[in-house]
């Protein structure tokens, strides 16, 4: 923290923003400042009213429906499993955002292509007879399927970066975002054209069917496997970012591209590596989501992608632990929300989007993050 002297003793976080705004604020009229605080209090008041209404609704519904505890626990477990998958995808958004300050809108599609590669690998191993073979063979096949999914995603992610994002580095921020939207649509509808409309099914091997009971709660094997795998992958990512030389380079580039380049870091290479990492996680998530939902379609990456983005924002985008926490939380909210609020499950997506909107209004920095949504565009 030796650099504090340079900046009037301000706390290190968001220092530049404070400096910029404070210089400007001092010349701003009193009226503008008061107006801003009025809006803020208005928003806060509305938020409190909303929270009170929400609590009232939850309590009344809870009293009226009177579900058993085991119901809530199994819902929560479902939520955690889904949250684990969202976390892997959310990490991809966060990694890319941390380095390039852009939302990789096509990340959900990167995941979807991983799921497609995975389903073809699954069909291949089923044709070879591995999926109904001895346990070791099935496990080996599953690992290879996951690897295939990751490879498919990595190929997509790297191509995406090379074709749609790299030429736009340094352009105004709307430009890469629009390019990303175009890329997202292009990938979705190319998959539709190349592979056809009919959804592909992930047939679970007999080994993965079923589960075990803890009291009244049924725990499916797929759920356990997905959750444990997600945790392991997150741990691996954490180690890569914190302990390896490339991880250190990534953090340096995230901090300041120019200075990192002066220190001899190949910025292009680091960015490609970031895309590889985020795509690999997305590929694994795609395969697991495939086994979880049993079908993949050309658009099955879109909504999970949006939700994972929500999770990343919820945790504070650009922040690795934040993405994990945010995703698990979002999974829980989504799983418990409809029953707790007494609304049909079709409104599940509305809950996720509402969470996104609410977080951005009341705490744009996310749970663990710094303020970025108001950073200069």
């Amino acid at each position: 923290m030796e650099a504090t002297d340079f900046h009037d003793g301000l706390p290190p976080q968001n220092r530049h923003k404070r400096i910029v705004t404070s210089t400007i604020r001092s010349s701003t009229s009193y009226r503008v400042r008061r107006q801003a605080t009025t809006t803020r209090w208005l928003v806060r008041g509305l938020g409190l009213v909303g929270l009170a209404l929400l609590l009232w609704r939850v309590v009344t519904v809870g009293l009226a429906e009177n579900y058993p505890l085991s119901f809530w626990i199994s819902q929560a477990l479902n939520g955690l499993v889904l949250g684990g998958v969202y976390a892997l995808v959310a990490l991809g958004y966060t990694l890319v955002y941390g380095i390039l300050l852009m939302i990789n809108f096509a990340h959900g599609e990167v995941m979807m292509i991983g799921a497609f590669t995975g389903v073809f690998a699954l069909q291949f191993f089923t044709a070879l007879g591995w999926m109904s073979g001895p346990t070791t063979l099935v496990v080996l096949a599953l690992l290879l399927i996951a690897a295939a999914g990751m490879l498919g995603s990595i190929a997509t992610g790297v191509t995406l970066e090379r074709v749609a994002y790299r030429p736009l580095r340094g352009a105004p921020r709307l430009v890469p975002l629009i390019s990303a939207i175009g890329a997202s649509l292009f990938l979705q509808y190319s998959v539709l054209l190349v592979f056809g409309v009919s959804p592909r099914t992930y047939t679970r091997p007999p080994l993965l069917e079923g589960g075990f009971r803890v009291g009244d709660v049924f725990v499916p094997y797929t759920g356990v496997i997905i959750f444990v795998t997600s945790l392991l992958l997150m741990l691996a990512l954490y180690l890569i970012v914190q302990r390896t030389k490339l991880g250190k380079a990534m953090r340096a580039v995230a901090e300041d591209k120019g200075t990192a380049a002066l220190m001899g870091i190949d910025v292009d290479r680091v960015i490609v590596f970031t895309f590889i990492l985020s795509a690999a996680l997305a590929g694994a998530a795609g395969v697991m989501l495939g086994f979880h939902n049993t079908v993949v379609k050309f658009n099955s990456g879109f909504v999970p992608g949006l939700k994972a983005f929500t999770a990343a924002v919820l945790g504070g985008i650009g922040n690795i632990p934040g993405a994990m926490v945010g995703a698990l939380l979002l999974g829980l909210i989504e799983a418990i929300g409809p029953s707790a609020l007494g609304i049909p499950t079709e409104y599940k997506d509305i809950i996720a989007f509402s969470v996104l909107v609410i977080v951005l209004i009341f705490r744009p920095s996310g749970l663990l993050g710094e303020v970025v949504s108001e950073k200069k565009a």
Partner: protein
Amino acid sequence: MRLRSVQRGLRIGAIAFAILTYLILIGLPTRLGSVATPVLALLTALIFWVALRGGKSKRALADQSPAPLALTGATAGLASGLLTAALIAGFARLLAAGVNVQPYLDKIVPLNMAALYGVMPGAVMAGELPGGGWLWQVGLLTLAGVVGALLVLLERSLRQRTWSTGGALRWLTIVLPFVLLAFVIWLGSPGVTLGGNNRGTLRLLAAMAAIGSALFALRAAQRGREQRILALLLLIGLAYLPFTLDQFQNSVMGIVFIFVMMGLGLNIVVGFAGLLDLGYVAFFAIGAYVYAFLSAPFASPAFSALLTSLGVPADAPLVSFWVAIPITMLAAGLGGVLLGIPVLRLRGDYLAIVTLGFGEIIRLFMLNMSDLTNGPRGLLNVAPPYLFGYNLGNPRDIFILALLGAGVIAFAAYRLDGSRLGRAWIAMREDEDVAQATGVNLVQTKLLAFAIGALFAGLAGQLYAARQTNIFPDNFTLFVSVDTLSLVIVGGMGSIPGVVLGALALKGLPEVLRGIDEYRIVTFAALLVIMMIVRPEGILPSTRRRRELHEEGGPASEPAITLEPALPTDYRTLDGGKL
């Protein structure tokens, strides 16, 4: 030197091979039929042209010398040809062996391969492929490489010569819309057989080209009297258009101009104020649904029940189309303010995602609140507009109404652009902090942008509902937002004529080229990416944006003086978990 040319050729060839593989996989040859291979070769020649000229700048073009260029082109052509021919032969063998590839790759069917070999599908199934088939493919693609190289050389020699066209080109631009209009009218007169069965399509195409060229003509004309006279003449021509076109042509033009109305509204939000709104369809939907409630209250179970309980008969329209206009616009504008308040603090990409979420929420509500909106079954029998007892619901009158609406909105947008508010929007778009410091009321300015944009979308929605007479939640998907955004961007953000051109290109052309309907979305998605890379300011950019995006000496986003301190701003990253 030679080795490097060959290496470069191989790289370009590989890229071309990837693109060709993609085109084969999406089934383009099936569509093209017997001319598949030549057309693909032509496309490849264009790809080689772009790849060989090496970048956008003039200098890159001047650096190319003929002999290495020809070598590179030929290598690239040969490489892509050999690879592609091998791929096609592989697929053909598989099909001949009786393997059903379709469950894996949907478009790899005998018809597709047959088109590439120029034979009947039966021949592919039987494995009777012409012996020299692969030679033909390789030959054509190698030729494409050479042609690509020649195109680069041709472009270079054309660029090196300075052309003195004098005022001829300008006058040609000014006269062109009138020539095209005359062509449209002549095509419609009885006894003309030009174009045969496709005469209607040709006419529609010419009419759209006329409107598009009119925009360029207006730009080419000198400011002042010349421009005003030209504008008047063009307006007269435009006003005549609905009366000469037939039903189908008018209905296409109607939808194009409804999207012009939408685009002009979104242009205010995105182009002027710089707020990327991906949920714009929500206001379009509000306009359409509010008009549907007002004109067909019986269609909605809950609303008609409410009216009957209040003693109002629910079996007839509540108000006429004209009275409904302020109501729908107000409702949509209110929606704009309600969306605007929570997102006041958000910028850039965050705003985009939140508005996208809002758009989806509105659609999900329309889909699920069956009592009010009748769910996926939609609201039926929405009333068309009436004027003195005349039904204006036919395509011609809808086109006229859309023209009028677009005209009014364009005028409003034009006036807003130069107004105090318009300048405040631009200041806000460039830098919110500085804008606030110079006295711009950010809250008011932002909300006004959302509200005014929404007003126009509401009007467009009302006209859309009156045109369709039946509306469903599926008419208001995210793709309406994306289409509108694309047309604003393709035309040129912040540019009013750009919106018209964008709507003609993105909504009109697909109607004309029905054959590529399947490829519509991928084409536009690819166009969006390419546009961002090649010409981010759009086809008909506003002068200001053009300057911004083509600043001398480096990208526009890096001003000479930055406010950021030279030192990193957050040291937690070195020891904490944050990336």
